[in-house]
């Protein structure tokens, strides 16, 4: 037996002895580096083969490689043993599945934002794009351009909050009472075909109670094109109501008056509490009013320079708070802007 083979036997014994003492993955890695690493003892041994005399080289080479294989195998076995021991340890430390994890703060959007987005999403699906307009508005856009001149009795439909600003003895600036000014604002800048929805804040000089807020949010809708008719308006609004309130919703249309539409209508859905029988929620009529709408008045299309023999259009305005109250079963509109977290966290 040559010296070299003794070295190999010694190396093997040392490696196996040290491996036996390894108790975790880090020590195992150290062991691997010490024996099998780039500068490990076995590697160095094998690398030194060319320096040996020819007659030894073959034998030492074979034994050295056998050693490397053996140690690779032992390493793998040890690794598996350590891993299964570790897993067993993990398993033995049982979790209590009924306990919560550490808290992760979750932000939420306001129910009005959520409802608004859902509604805009429905209209987007029908090709309506969202645009916006100012909340502080001119009397011109809020009223006059919508066929509501000063001293028109229809002004009573929108009790107005005015800005303390006078010009030529009049107050021309106000907090918009509806999103309808944007019909005119948009048509002034664009040509048909038009399909827009305009979300936004509106204000009314109105005492607050369970169903009235002085600050409210609306979505205005406007479509102007060739061949738009009242049946299209009905179809659009019925589709909207069913998407928001459910496919089995009954939708009813009745005549109403807004100076900027002709014909005009109000749209109701059947009360989902009583299904049309009459209850407290619907004021015992079986129906709940959700929006006002109509065909854009030809005077308005004409004042925009559109040819009313070619173009017709429809418009609608819907209050978000009311829709949110109905879909979430909120019984008092004032909850929305009181910002009580106990309320807001339910959404």
């Amino acid at each position, binding site marked *: 037996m040559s010296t070299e083979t003794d070295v190999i036997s010694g190396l093997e014994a040392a490696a196996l002895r040290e491996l036996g003492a390894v108790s975790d993955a880090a020590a195992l890695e150290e062991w691997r580096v010490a024996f099998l690493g780039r500068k490990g003892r076995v590697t160095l041994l094998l690398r030194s083969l060319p320096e040996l005399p020819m007659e030894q080289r073959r034998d030492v080479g074979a034994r050295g490689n056998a050693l490397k294989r053996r140690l690779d195998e032992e390493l793998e076995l040890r690794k598996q043993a350590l891993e299964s021991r570790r897993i067993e340890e993990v398993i033995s430390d049982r979790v209590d599945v009924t306990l919560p994890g550490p808290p992760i703060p979750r932000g939420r959007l306001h129910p009005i934002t959520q409802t608004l987005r859902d509604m805009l999403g429905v209209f987007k699906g029908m090709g309506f794009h969202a645009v916006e307009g100012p909340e502080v508005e001119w009397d011109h856009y809020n009223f006059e351009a919508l066929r509501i001149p000063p001293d028109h009795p229809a002004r009573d439909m929108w009790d107005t*909050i005015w800005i303390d600003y006078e010009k030529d003895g009049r107050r021309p600036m106000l907090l918009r009472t509806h999103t309808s000014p944007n019909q005119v604002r948009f048509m002034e800048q664009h040509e048909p*075909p038009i399909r827009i929805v305009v979300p936004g804040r509106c204000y009314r000089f109105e005492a607050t109670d369970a169903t009235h807020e002085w600050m409210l949010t609306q979505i205005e809708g406007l479509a102007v094109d060739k061949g738009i008719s009242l049946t299209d308006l009905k179809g659009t609004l019925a589709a909207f109501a069913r998407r928001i309130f459910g496919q089995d919703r009954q939708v009813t249309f009745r005549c109403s008056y807004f100076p900027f539409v002709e014909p005009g209508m109000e749209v109701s859905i059947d009360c989902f509490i009583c299904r049309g029988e009459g209850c407290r929620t619907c004021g015992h009529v079986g129906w709940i009013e959700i929006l006002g709408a109509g065909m854009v008045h030809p005077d308005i299309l004409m004042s925009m320079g559109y040819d009313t023999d070619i173009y017709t259009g429809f418009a609608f305005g819907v209050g978000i708070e009311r829709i949110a109250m109905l879909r979430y079963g909120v019984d008092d509109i004032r909850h929305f802007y009181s910002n009580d977290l106990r309320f807001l966290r339910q959404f």
Partner: protein
Amino acid sequence: MRVPLSWLSEYVDLRIDARELAHRLTVAGAEVSAIEEAGSWDGIVIARVEKVEPHPNADRLVLATVDIGDGTDAEVVCGAPNLQEGQKVAYAGIGTSLIDGYEGKPFVLKKAKIRGVESNGMICSEKELGLSENHTGILVLPEDSVVGQPLSSAVGDTILDVEVTANRADWLSIIGIAREVAALTDQRWRDPSLQYTEGKKLASKMARVEIADKDLCPRYIGAVIEGVKVGESPPWMQERLIAAGMRPINNIVDITNYVMLEVGQPLHAFDYDKVRGKKIVVRRAERGEKIKLLDGSKHRLTQDMLLICDGEGPTAVAGVMGGGDSEVSARTTTILLEAANFSGPSVRRTSQALKIRTDASTRFEKGLSRQLPAVGAARAVKLMTEICGGRPAQGLIDVFPGTEKDRRVTLTMERLERVLGLEVPNGEVRRILTSLGFTCRWLPPDRFIVKVPYWRTDVSIADDVIEEIARIYGYDQLPTSRLKGEVPDYVPVPILDLRERVRDAAAAAGLQEVITYSMTELEPMEHVLGPEELAMNPPLRLANPLSRQYEWARTTLRHSVLQALAGNLRGSQDRIGLFEVDRVYLPRVAELPEEREMLCAVIAGRAPDRWGSPTGDLPGFYDARAILDSVLDALKVKGEYKESVDFALLPGRSSEVFVGEDRAGCLGEVHPRVLGQLGIDVPVAILELDIGALLPHVPEGIHHQPVSPFPAVEEDLAVTVDEAVLAGNVAAAIESSPLVVSARVFDIYTGEQIPRGRKSLAFAITYQAPDRTLSDGDVAKQRGRIVERLKHEFNAELRA
């Protein structure tokens, strides 16, 4: 408008029940907001008095046996002096709800012994039934009342409360509703009679009418009725007025009110003898002119108000209210009746300026027909003749400077179909329009010439007529369809999209969204904004705020969000994070204000531990910074933070954030002074972002960078710098060096081994090349350059 069905039925047959009628009217545009049953008498039936016998123990009481129609008799103790055998009466059984005849309060009838005799129910007085205040005797029903039927079949009324829209002045009359009911139930209505016999005396000889301002008074009719006896009007008229919501006064005034309710024309009766100069002048008021009105109020008038004057001065404000001087009294014998037409806008302006709204002004302001005064005058004269014994003078004094032309509208079938989306047969169009009083003439090949009835002042174009057809046809009968045209091009509104991304980012950072009122008080704004800021953007004030609380258009969200926070603290230790994304209103001269989209967020309360219990960790600057970084990261923009001084924030703990050259917001710890003013007693970190300022810096899309397949090298670098040097600036300098992909501060140290006035900053630097594995030499070379650069820019020394 209150419409008693008993009155309505005089002009049209009511062939459907009240509920169905209310529904059809509502659907057609005359919204019935309430159906009022005058008396809902559950358990009260019509009975016949079979026998009246003395009460054994009481002289003033009797025992009545009544047939209640179910085959049995009931014996009732009664004290009414007018009770007689054979009468039809209202019988209330045990358990019925009634009104106590003495106290006027509701009670439930119980079985009781009255002076030792059991009374099995009750025969009711009008008061007990809630019909009137009369409790002197029992209510005696008409002979043809049917025993056993509910009381409501014999007495009582149903009243529809109709919400009349601003365009339908004609619906402010019973006849107007009758016309509608006729059209909806396919019959004709019956107009009230206008026939009366005139006297010999010429009205035009008895008084003169002069219209000075024809623009505000297109027509004025004066009628003279002599020999009237002023007194109470007959019960039927009083009942109708009460049912319609008016108070009976005397027969003359009642007739003017009755006719107004009946046909919609407001009228005014002057005491002829008190009309000075026997002359009516309709003119604008003179500057400073004064008048005392019927309700006793005194007013100073302006030159745009229209007056009715006699020979010497004002006697009424036209279309609004009469004056006290020429009021009809018990001694009045001759009436000068006014039936006029006034300009709607003028009446409305005057009524608003004087803050007086009357039944007359609400009708005039909606625009009445100029033909209506003739109807109203004739009807009132007829009733004054019949009820007050009056003798009408011959003719009317009718000043009608302009005439009213018949309105004709051309309706093509093509337009009808274009607007409705449905072909309506000619016969149906004609049937509907005729039923509403329109006259149709077919003009081949394709159109109707439609004559509008005088009372329909709201109809002037083809589309108005189309609405008539649609609403009587029934909106619900129309089919539905989908929009067919091309979907228009997308109109990008970048600020809107960005604002919603900011909302999502803030919520993703763990904050709860709030929405607060955008009009606020001034005082809390003064707490969070410095005087210069307020002077630069003085908030817009509202002329008529709902309350002082909502008087100013806010120029910041800070106070609003802090107030929402204050409302939620309630002594809780838990961490709360709130945000609002909304507009602030920055004034511009003679223009609408700039409405700037802002984000404001606040954090308060202790951070939770693993179990959710509050730790000692209170929010500070870096918590706000973390949220702001997270929001900016979501938008793919990089903020640059600079120390700042802010009125509401703690100095040394506040910062501005810049994106590119633009100041995009600020953050910091709210000054305890401000917190105290807003009633908050815990530390609060706040941040604010100007979404509009951000907009130009937000990349439109995401451009993917290839991930380097070559290994990164991580190493630490520690330098000392003067204490004033900001670590972020040093990190930014390192990060902008070649081969560096990131540099992160991980330790800041002052103390032992560091010279006074200096601090040690340690950075974890990641080097990586996109195209090769970095060698030790590459990294060492770059490290050397960085150290040189830091020495040059920050006077930094490499720590050994």
